[in-house]
């Protein structure tokens, strides 16, 4: 359970962005989250509220966009879905995935800022 430290990193990143923007109040944060990031959405939402207390982001909402896993399969010559989270093989032909294209995201996508 490292979601609290992840939440603190999100807040730190957001506060820096607010300063770059010349101040304001953050009403929402948009985050991209993939299942391979090792971060649990529910635990992150829970930690976020706690972590925001006493910061510029107190009272803001964390909006999480879940990104599904996509793999590249050399045999099929394109992107596709894996069999499952535990089995990163091409769902079409069964070949092992060459690489993961999406699904490891843990990214601060945008801020909603009130000025």
């Amino acid at each position, binding site marked *: *359970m*490292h979601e609290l*430290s*992840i939440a603190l*990193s*999100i807040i*730190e*990143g*957001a506060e820096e*962005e607010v300063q770059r*923007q010349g101040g304001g*109040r953050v*009403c929402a944060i948009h*985050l991209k989250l993939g299942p391979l*990031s*090792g*971060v649990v959405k529910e635990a992150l939402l829970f930690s976020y509220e706690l972590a925001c207390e006493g910061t510029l982001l107190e009272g803001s909402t964390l909006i999480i966009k879940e990104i599904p896993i996509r793999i590249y399969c050399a045999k099929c010559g394109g992107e596709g879905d894996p069999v499952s989270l535990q089995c990163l093989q091409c769902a079409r032909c069964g070949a092992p995935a060459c690489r993961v294209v999406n699904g490891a995201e*843990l*990214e*601060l*996508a*945008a*801020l*909603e*800022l*009130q*000025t």
Partner: protein
Amino acid sequence: MTQSRLVEVRQKVLTKNDAAARVLRERFQDAGVCVISLVSSPGSGKTAFLERILSRLRTDFRVAALVGDLATDNDAARLARSRVPVKQICTGTVCHLDASMVSSALEGWDLTELDFLFIENVGNLVCPSSYDLGERARAVLLSVVHLSHR
């Protein structure tokens, strides 16, 4: 009237750790030390593996180890018997090592005097995978006894 606007950021959440890890990686390269980190579930044998490898390598190479644990320095005490420099990193309530912890633990060590540095992470296969420590390679230890039902 207040207005709300959307500001695109597009920044990895662990960007600070990634930056600290890059600095470490450069330091390791400049000093010519090969850094290998070890991760596994609790009780899979990271410390036992290190005990053996440190004892074997120390006859021909200059080796040292950093060991991460939540609370105790039992692992460091065990590894100190291998008679190589060992330092414990107590993470407190944090379930993984990050680049800044490694960087602070290295204070006072001259990396140019080392050939190999091993970093034993906290016993956990979830969180440590997200944090780059600047290592050249990351080794995962799997216990076959545990694997039979997983």
